[in-house]
């Protein structure tokens, strides 16, 4: 079985600036190439219309990674930018782990804002908030949605 996963402590995905974010990364890559290096990163990136931008805010190199492994990580979230959505662009925060060779990776998106919820800049977006919270990370990007479902943060 091959997998790479990120688990956040207490299953939290919403945080305030300055808080600590802790969790673990675990993987089983025993069927593939040996893992030469592993790094956990705290990143933000943009999504929307137009060019994409991103930043690696913090990174922890995991020394001596094994083919099957579990490691803890801890980051202190910065003051900003906040998780925010306008019409043209969203700023998204995430924790990701990248294993080399092959850039095998996993990513979990989080929210960072003073309210612990994504900041919406337009009132017509407000109705989405409750629906997304209910739908959770369905990962249903590009797939047919069932009645009552909504695009969730998910994986892309």
């Amino acid at each position, binding site marked *: 079985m091959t997998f790479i996963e990120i688990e956040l402590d207490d299953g939290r995905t919403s945080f305030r600036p300055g808080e600590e974010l802790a969790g673990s990364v675990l993987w089983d890559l025993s069927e593939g190439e040996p893992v030469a290096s592993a790094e956990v990163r705290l990143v933000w990136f*943009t*999504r*929307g*219309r*137009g*060019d*994409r931008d991103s930043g690696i805010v913090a990174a922890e190199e995991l020394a001596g990674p094994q083919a099957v492994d579990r490691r803890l990580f801890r980051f202190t979230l910065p003051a900003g930018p906040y998780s925010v*959505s*306008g*019409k*043209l*662009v*969203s700023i*998204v925060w995430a924790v990701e782990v990248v294993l080399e060779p092959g850039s095998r990776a996993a990513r979990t998106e989080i929210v960072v804002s003073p309210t612990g919820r*994504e900041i*919406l800049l*337009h009132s*017509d*977006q407000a*109705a*989405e908030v409750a629906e*997304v919270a209910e739908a959770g990370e369905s990962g*249903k*990007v*590009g*797939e*047919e*949605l069932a*009645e*009552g*479902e*909504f*695009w*969730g*943060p998910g994986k*892309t």
Partner: protein
Amino acid sequence: MERSGRCVDALRPRLNPFRTERLDSLAYCSPETGRPLELAPLVDCFDALGRRAAVIGPEGSGKTTLLDALAPRLVARGLEVRRLRAAPGGGVLRGAEALDDPGPETVLFVDGLDRLPGAARRRVRRAARSAGGLLVTAHRPLRTLRVGRLGRLGTLTECATTPALLAALVARLSGASTPAAAPLPSAEDLHARHGGNLRTALLELYDLYAGR
């Protein structure tokens, strides 16, 4: 493209099915069927052309998408692919350092040859002499452009778009959802209004879903 599906409120950019990262990840598709195109014949054709060729097509017809798809195929054959492109609107070459000392195992991808100024084109010609391959994109046949010997490059393929292709891409991206702001335009209407430019057509749909 009209469909009965659940109507969604104005979508946040990160959830918009027509956001940039999704458009950039679209596979290169056949204009006739709208299905991803098998690329092996094109790679073989590129080899047959001596690994020096051009991809021709109007704006938003998939030239860059095709280069994106071909690059890993060439890398899998042990080649190094160096990419450079003309800046939007023409002028300064991005990735120009890729032209430094290419070797026989290097294939240069030049995206937007016809938008490059003369000095940059000359630089491409010089680098191409020692490179193992050259694949350029242009909006019209190279023989109609003032590109010197590059005008002799064979045409690997001509990219074109159709309403059927646009409809297939929209279906793939949007799933069963429809925007709240307005009904989806027909593929024929959208294709015609954008002159076949898939990118601008899909960005119009971004705006529809974003409630702009």
